[in-house]
Structure formats: C-alpha cells, structure tokens
C-alpha cells in the first residue's frame, strides 16, 4: 500500500492553503470524536450485555434449581407412596400371618412374637420415613408442627437430644416456602447426624412480622469451609441454593470443635421465584 508520491517543488504558499489546512484539521477532529464516541458506546454496550448475561445466568440457575427440586420432590413423593401403600402393607400382612400361626411350641411362639414386634417397629419407622419424604405432612400440619414432630422422632430414637422453640405467633409462609424450609431442616439434620457427630440440637423458629428466621444449631465437630469434603460441601451449597430459591438468605457459621449454626432469614416482603402465592406446587 505504498503511497510515496514524488511531487514537484515549485511556487510556495497560497491563501487557499489555510482553508485546506483548517478543513483537514476539522475533519480529523471529527474523526477523533467519532472514535471516542465509538469507544464510549462500545463499552456501554459491553456493560449492558454483561448485565443481561448475568441476569440470564441467574434466571437459568434458578430455573435449573427449581426443576431439580421438583424432580426431587416427585421422587420423594413416589418413594413415600411406595413405602406407605406397598411395603408397609406387605409388612402388615406378614405381621398378621405370623399372628395366625397356630400350634407352635412356646420357644417358637416367643420367636414369632419377637419378630412381630420387630416388624411393627419397621412399619412405624417406615411410616415416619414416608411422612418425612412426603410434602403432604407439610401441607396438612404446617412447617412448625412437622419440624417439631421430626425433631421428636429423632430425639425418641436416642441418637441426639434436642431443644425446639417457636418464638412469635405462627403464620403460614406458603406451601412451597415451607416445603423448601423443611428440606433445608432435613439437610441440616442429616449433616449434624452423619458428619458432625452432634449430641444436641437446638432448633428455633422465629415468627417476626414480615420476617421469618429459622435457626439450626448443633454441638458437633464443626468445620472450616476450606477443609470440607465434597459431600458436606455439596450439602451446605444445597442449603444455600434452596434458601436463595425462596428469596431467603442462608448464613452458615462453624469453626472446628464448636459445632455449626445455620440461620435462614426469609424476608416476606421480598419477591422470589417460589413465593407463597405461587399456584403450582411440587409434584
């Protein structure tokens, strides 16, 4: 692209030259302004695109999480129904059959009765499990009573002791929110029993007008976030994700040797994907 032109040297100067010079200067000033304008506009567009992309990613994440939870709830409901309608029925039938065995020796009768008691225990446990898996208990009894019953069941098993408290007047949070909060409680309970080796649990539900706070504390081993294994880490992320889905904020605090505290704060004035007025429900 060489443009090396060899011109002739001749008469110097002309008044027109000033006009040409100023026109050229004006043109280059215009060009420079155009470039600056382009840069500013481009950067503005970049920022706009970034904001839109972030919003889309957040919406996608929320949608994905919602779909995952719906599938999970459907699976829970299916398993719960199977346990209730099939397995416990069969076990009841087995228990009945055992009761109908006649003309047996005392020794055998004792064994049969022991087995009947064991089956009765299995049936009760399975019914409890079925209830905890199903969302129906939440729908029927509400969050506070369901958590209280679940805590009572765990305490009764002798695995841990617990303190359960409700502060303020109970008000409904909405079916979906309560279900998500219950699943958070279950996840926290699971972590406390399986990984933290906790001996005592403190569960508090605070019903402050327009603000609900759920607190779950254990006196287990505790942890530091950096040293968490994948399973526990995933469980805690699950808690945070579920909380964000209902527009709540999860604060998880723990240090090694000092147990763990999970606090879910739900501002009821804030809109969320799963607000209490949403018509469709899980499964």
């Amino acid at each position, binding site marked *: 692209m060489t443009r090396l032109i060899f011109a*002739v040297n*001749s008469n110097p100067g002309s008044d027109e030259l000033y006009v040409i010079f100023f026109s050229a200067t004006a043109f280059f000033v215009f*060009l420079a302004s155009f470039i600056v304008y382009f840069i500013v506009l481009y950067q503005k567009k970049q920022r706009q695109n970034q904001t839109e992309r972030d919003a889309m990613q957040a919406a996608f994440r929320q949608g994905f999480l919602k779909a995952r939870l719906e599938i999970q709830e459907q699976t829970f409901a299916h398993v719960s129904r199977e346990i209730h309608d099939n397995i416990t029925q069969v076990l009841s039938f087995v228990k009945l059959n055992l009761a109908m065995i006649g003309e047996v020796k005392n020794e055998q009768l004792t064994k049969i009765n022991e087995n009947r008691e064991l089956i009765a225990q299995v049936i009760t446990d399975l019914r409890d499990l079925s209830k905890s898996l199903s969302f129906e208990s939440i729908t029927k009894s509400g969050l506070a009573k369901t958590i209280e019953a679940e805590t009572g069941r765990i305490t009764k098993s002798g695995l841990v002791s617990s303190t359960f408290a409700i502060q303020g007047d109970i008000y409904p949070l909405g079916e979906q929110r309560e279900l998500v909060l219950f699943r958070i409680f279950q996840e926290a309970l699971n972590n406390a029993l399986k990984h933290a080796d906790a001996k005592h649990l403190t569960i508090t539900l605070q019903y402050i007008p327009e603000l609900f706070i759920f607190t779950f504390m254990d006196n287990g081993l505790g942890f530091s976030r950096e040293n968490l294994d994948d399973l526990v880490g995933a469980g805690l992320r699950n808690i945070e994700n579920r909380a964000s889905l209902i527009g709540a904020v999860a604060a998880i605090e723990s240090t090694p040797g000092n147990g763990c505290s999970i606090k879910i704060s739900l501002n009821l004035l804030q809109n969320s994907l799963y607000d209490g007025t949403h018509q469709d429900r899980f499964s």
Partner: protein
Amino acid sequence: MDAEYYLYLLLLFLISLAGVMRYKKLSPAFKTLTILIIATFVSETIKKIIGKIFHNSMPVAHLWAIGEYAFFSLVYYRLLSGTRTKKLIIASVFFMILLEIVNIAFFESLLQFPAILLNVSQFIYVLYSLLLFRQMLIQPAEESLFKQSIFWFNLDMLLFSTAMFLNFALTSYFIKNKLDATMLIYFSIIVNMLFYTVIGISILIDNKKYDAVDFCSK
C-alpha cells in the same frame, strides 16, 4: 528517500515474519492479512527493483492496486457477517477490476500513478471500516476493546484511508498549483509506517479464540 524506503521494507518484513510465526494462532481474517503483508513486501521489493532498472514502477503499482484491494476485501469478507454484505464485497472486487481496465484505457496509463483506483479503494475501505464498527456495536465481545485485534485493525484502516484520501487530494492540488509537496510526502511516509506498525500490532495480539465478532457464519 532510499533510507525511508528500506526502513519501510524492513518494517514489512518484520510484520510478515511475525505473521508467519503466529500464523496458526490467527483467526481466518488475520491469516489473510498476513498473506497480504507478505505480498505487499514482495510487491514493494519488486517495485523498487523495477524502478531502479526501468525508472518507472507504475505497471507494478497498477497490478498491486488491484491485488491489494482484493486482499483487503477478503479480510473484510471474513470479518463482516451478512450474506448481502459478503456478496457486495465480492461484486466490488469485480467492479474494481473493470474500473482498472477502463482507467488504463482512458485515464491513467500503465506508466502513470493509479490514483483513481487508489482513491476509490480508500473510499470503499472507509465504508468497510464503518460497517465493521457497526457490527462490533451490535455484537460486542466480552474482551476489552483495546485488547481486540479487530478494533486496532479497523481503526487503522479508517484512519489510514481517510488520511491518504486527504493526502492524495492535497498532493494533486499542490502539484496542480506547483507548490512544494515535500511535507505531504513525509506525511505519507509517516502514515504508511504507522499503518503497517498498527497492522503488525493487531497481528501480534490476534487470537482466534477471542475474536470480537462471530465467525460461525463463515
């Protein structure tokens, strides 16, 4: 003037070398640009040799004016999206060939400087450049604008084409009015050097992974 010319050739050689070394990492448009720089280097060397022997290298300038236009059009063909735009780019190459034939036949013989062809080329480059800026605004990339090879190349094209267009006009005026055009010659040399330096920079920073525009349509 020889020293400037050799410096200019050295610059072209260095940019060609950089382009060849980074060839695999370059996006299709910048691969074409590298070939264009190599071809420019060869053409300018031939022009110098022919100029020394025959004292007139304008036939090479005529030939290269068309070649260069075709190459730059191919670069923009690869950078711009839109079937209609691409078709227009191809059509413009045929138009320029036709214009060159008419130019040689009626206006500027093979022994004269191909000013008409170069002026028209520069006008079209400005259009290409504006079209690409528009496309960049429609599809902004995540990467910082100043790290985008396409931005530097396109800006370079816009500034060079407008500056040279103005330079041609002024040179014609100076010659017509028998004024001293030495300043304009030096201006032209500086603009050329800057033009190829910025092209060299754009080749150095180009990366096919992070291009500003969508190349899927190619």
